[in-house]
């Protein structure tokens, strides 16, 4: 065995799970009543906060996002506070804490105060099941994928609480949009995940990662449709830009956040990033091989690989936010019900057939490469065919105006001026 | 005190009765629906505690029943809410006391 490979020994700090596991064993012997669980929760929370949440949220989430969006918009982004503006998030946080948190007179005070608090809790809970490394997972429960989907449906209710409690029409609009969109997007999301689960045969996240590691293929190649659906649904539920209709600032001011100010708003803002990073972590775990990188994880600490992948995935969210306009709510609904749902069902049928074939024929594991090719082609064909069937004709849309040289009256479409240049 | 079967059954019974009270006494159709949902949840709890502690049929049976109950509850909620909305549209009220189409 190579001396630099990562081992399971407790002193091998390249996988922090080894040490914490050892500590837990020792504590379990020493402490009564299973108090160790409480302690472990506290330690795990503190550790993950220090090594992951804080840097991710503040540096990548707030600073990185602002900097990147700044570059996309051909401006500098934060560059005043600290070196390269790195302390900008801290300055923002201090500013937010100093601000007065206004409460409208007619607001439902209890709900308005409760909403930001309830919004934070699920975000922390989400990270409990994410495997950062072979031994670095706080709770490797057997139904982790379902757990993730379940917990991530709770913040929607808090956004509803927030929107409703203000007694403001814009907020109510935001709340209604959130509720309507959630119902629509939960369905294709779960159906897409079902395709993944059918392939791997496990609902555990660590199991999913190990399955990908064993077969040396990422599920994104096997399940391109599920990946796309996950990405779109996630950005819909996270209110990221192409689908941020719940807080669409050009239409309904700030949606459910309209009346929030100070740190109550700050909690929503920060946790929005937290949820986005959690979704990125989940996407990386399920579709992009988690902490594995084709053997490199034996050398490099796996949690570094994982965090790197997560941030790259999060970059996709930033990118779409920086470039895409926003859809209208009825278009979003139509897209979910008429486009993503049928395609997800189609994907499910395809996966079931392939899985059946795999088991019945007792085929070799390398058949997944064939499946990957088939699925990618099928995905492209399904997306193209279904969109054509729904009446999508990009080539019929003129993108340049007609040009005429003389002023006069109405120019009928047939005469067409001098045509598009 | 370590919770046993009786504890779960007691909780289930209390919840069931509370749900029944809500369903019987609420004026609002949506309130009545919520009472029914609480009753169904109480039944689920009871079934699962039997599945966990009971001897005989095996735990899978109880869980399968719960799956069916959840399904039926979802269907029921959808239909009941659709009814409430359409009754509101046609009668401008969802007060169960005033839904007396057959009487007048």
């Amino acid at each position, binding site marked *: 065995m190579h001396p630099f490979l990562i081992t399971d020994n407790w002193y091998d700090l390249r996988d922090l799970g080894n040490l914490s596991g050892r500590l837990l064993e020792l504590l379990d012997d020493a402490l009564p009543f299973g108090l160790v669980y409480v302690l472990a929760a506290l330690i795990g929370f503190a550790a993950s906060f220090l090594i992951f949440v804080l840097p991710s949220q503040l540096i990548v989430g707030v600073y990185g996002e602002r900097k990147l969006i700044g570059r996309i918009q051909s401006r500098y982004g934060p560059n005043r506070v600290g070196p390269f503006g790195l302390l900008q998030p801290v300055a923002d946080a201090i500013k937010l804490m100093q601000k007065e948190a206004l409460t409208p007179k007619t607001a439902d005070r209890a709900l308005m105060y409760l909403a930001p608090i309830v919004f934070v809790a699920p975000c922390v809970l989400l990270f409990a099941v994410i495997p950062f490394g072979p031994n670095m997972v706080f709770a490797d429960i057997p139904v982790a994928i379902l757990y993730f989907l379940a917990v991530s449906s709770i913040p929607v209710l808090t956004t509803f609480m927030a929107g409703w409690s203000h007694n403001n029409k814009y907020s109510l609009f935001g709340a209604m949009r959130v509720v309507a969109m959630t119902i629509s997007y939960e369905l294709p999301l779960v159906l897409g995940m079902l395709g993944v689960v059918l392939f791997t045969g496990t609902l555990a996240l660590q199991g999913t990662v190990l399955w990908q590691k064993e077969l040396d293929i990422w599920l994104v190649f096997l399940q391109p449709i599920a990946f796309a659906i996950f990405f779109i649904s996630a950005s819909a539920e996270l209110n990221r830009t192409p689908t941020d*209709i719940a807080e669409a600032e*050009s239409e309904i001011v700030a949606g459910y956040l309209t009346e929030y100010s100070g740190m109550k708003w700050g909690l929503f803002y920060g946790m929005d990033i937290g949820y986005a990073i959690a979704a990125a972590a989940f996407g990386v775990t399920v579709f992009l091989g988690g902490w594995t990188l084709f053997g490199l994880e034996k050398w490099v600490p796996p949690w570094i690989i994982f965090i790197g992948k997560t941030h790259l995935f999060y970059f996709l969210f930033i990118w779409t936010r920086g470039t*895409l306009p926003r859809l209208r709510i*009825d278009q979003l609904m139509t897209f979910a019900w008429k486009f993503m749902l049928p395609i997800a069902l189609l994907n499910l049928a395809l996966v079931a057939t392939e899985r059946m074939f795999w088991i019945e024929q007792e085929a070799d594991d390398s058949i997944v490469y064939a499946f990957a090719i088939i699925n990618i082609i099928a995905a492209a064909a399904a997306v193209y065919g279904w969109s054509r069937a729904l009446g999508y004709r990009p080539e019929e849309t003129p993108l340049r105006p007609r040009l005429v040289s003389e002023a006069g009256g109405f*120019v009928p479409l047939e005469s067409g001026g001098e045509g598009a240049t | 005190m370590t919770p046993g079967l009786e504890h779960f059954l007691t909780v289930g019974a209390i919840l069931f009765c509370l749900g029944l009270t809500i369903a019987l006494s609420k004026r609002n159709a949506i309130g009545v629906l919520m009472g029914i949902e609480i009753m169904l949840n109480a039944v689920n709890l009871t079934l699962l505690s039997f599945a966990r502690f009971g001897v005989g049929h095996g735990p899978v049976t109880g869980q399968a029943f719960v799956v069916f109950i959840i399904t039926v509850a979802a269907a029921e909620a959808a239909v009941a809410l659709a009814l409430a909305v359409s009754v509101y549209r046609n009668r401008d009220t969802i007060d169960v006391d005033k839904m007396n189409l057959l009487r007048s």
Partner: protein
Amino acid sequence: MSGLIKSEPFTLNIGPQHPSTHGVFRIKVKVDGERIVDAEMVMGYLHRAMEKLAEERTYTQNIPFTDRTDYLASMSNNLGYVLAVEKLAGINVPERGNAIRVIMAELQRIASHCMAVGAFTNDTGAWQTPVMWCFRERERVLDLFEMTSGARLTCNYMRIGGVAFDLPKEFEPATRRLLADLPGFIDEIEGLLVGNEIFLARTRGVGALSAETATNFSLSGPMLRGSGIAWDIRKADPYCGYEKYDFQIPIGYQGDAFDRFIVRLEEMRQSVKIVQQALDALPGGPHSTQVPLALRPPAGEAYARVEGPRGELGYYVVSDEGPSPYRFHIRPPSFINLSALKEMTVGGTVADAIVVLGSIDIVVGEIDR
């Protein structure tokens, strides 16, 4: 509009403090779920009674007022007003003055359309990126204005009989550099947005007006051309020697928000062409004729119009031989373009209403005057 939810109709105030009303403008919409059933405009928050004030100042003193009507296109407003006074008083403008006026008006059109395009894409929800890109180029145009007139926004550059100052010598190279970059920039914006599915879905068919409706509602400018009517005052009624320049009128297909958007983009290209030609053939000579300070045009009236960035920008001036206009009326294009707002928004969603408002390209200073 399937997928919309119906509920009790209620009134929603879009504005006067709203990110998408481009100033203090307010639409009272009555919504049923997300669908708009009624829309009423409320304006006048910025009313300064300019037409009254202008009756008590001399003709020359009124030029700064015109800056402050449409503060995004002050050059065009200056031009419209001085043309009306020159028509009234029968003053001729030297060749060079006319050419400089054309250059300034077209640069102003580019700057104003940059703003219009950027703000419109912001209304569709493209989070600030196109705005910032547009501002980048608009800044350079404003730099040119600063170079010539000393002001960036409210230039006050045109004078009765010509322009205030001659062009500085660094103006021409700077303008040529800008003109070399602008087509690439327009292509960039086009690449970012025009082929974008989401953008198309948000703007195609939204706020569509047929040619008859657009005419009947007295619309002008890109809104009229978006509906397929080839009407451009620079072509139809050339002023300042526009007949010498070679350019074309872009017209749309069905008069929706997308058509107005692509018409604006194309107009920027055409403006680049015009400025290029005007620079190449910039005549020498004086930039202005001498006009008495207390100008007293003969009694009468004149209606002069120019093709402003937002549409037909008309000035109706009545003189009673006094030193100040007897009656001074502005025909504000974005005010009149708004008259079709209800027609375009009712039946659509709130999000559509915002897109429609953005496609009209209103400037509240001009609406309220």
